[in-house]
């Protein structure tokens, strides 16, 4: 079994170190800092201070919701002829038999627009629109030059992470060893 997993801790770290959220946080702290110093009312000052303390905790709220609803890992597990993909909110077991699986560097298979899912600079998962206009389920952790695209009965899955070539090699090896397992290879 070949697997690639990230945990809720990776999600939390990725959220707290996201450059856009960090920039927003610094901006909000500066503006509310001025509010805090200028306002005369003690109650208002307490509310501002509470918000400033709670802001980083609020950033972790989506991760806490996922963790409490049973999502303890994200990524994939490849076994037998199947691959179990967990890319919030998608949790699917994909049958690789008679599916198209290919490794590509092509920009047109890269995710472009997140339609629904979770995204920070390092992590992207959920439903995406690709640069070629195809809608796909994407799991991305960091980046890699090459990435795996799976087309199972017209539904596309894109897997991006460092070392994803290993998954493609594993699927090819399985095809050679197991005569009942056939993957359609299309050069893209």
């Amino acid at each position, binding site marked *: 079994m070949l697997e690639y997993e990230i945990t809720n801790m990776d999600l939390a770290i990725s959220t707290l170190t996201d450059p856009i*959220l960090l920039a*927003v946080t610094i*901006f*909000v702290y500066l*503006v509310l800092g001025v*509010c805090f110093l200028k306002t005369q009312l003690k109650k208002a000052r307490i509310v501002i201070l509470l*918000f400033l303390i709670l802001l980083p905790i609020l950033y972790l709220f989506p991760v806490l919701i996922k963790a409490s609803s049973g999502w303890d890992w994200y990524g994939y597990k490849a076994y037998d002829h199947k691959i179990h993909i967990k890319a919030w909110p998608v949790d699917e077991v994909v049958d690789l038999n008679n599916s198209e699986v290919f490794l590509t560097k092509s920009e047109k298979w890269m995710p472009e627009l997140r*339609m*629904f899912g979770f*995204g920070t600079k390092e992590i992207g998962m959920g439903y995406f629109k690709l640069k070629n206009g195809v809608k796909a389920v994407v799991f991305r952790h960091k980046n890699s030059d090459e990435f795996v695209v799976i087309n199972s009965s017209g539904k596309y899955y894109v897997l991006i992470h460092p070392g994803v070539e290993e998954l493609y090699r594993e699927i090819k090896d399985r095809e050679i060893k197991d005569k009942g397992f056939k993957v359609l290879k299309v050069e893209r």
Partner: protein
Amino acid sequence: MRYELPIGGGVKIITFLTLVLPLAVAISLYWLYSIGFFVIIAILPIFVIFAIVYVYSPKEVILENRLEL
């Protein structure tokens, strides 16, 4: 005769909530959709305007009794 009534803390707190809630919504959208990034960019100038209003809103209401007895 002039009466000076300070604005209650409750009003300030409600103003503060109207200041931060759109930002919280924008950040939530940022997690879920690519478009959320543009919502954050759009909301930040509004956030600054709200902050200025919050800081410089009147601290008291002056009532002037013009009734002449």
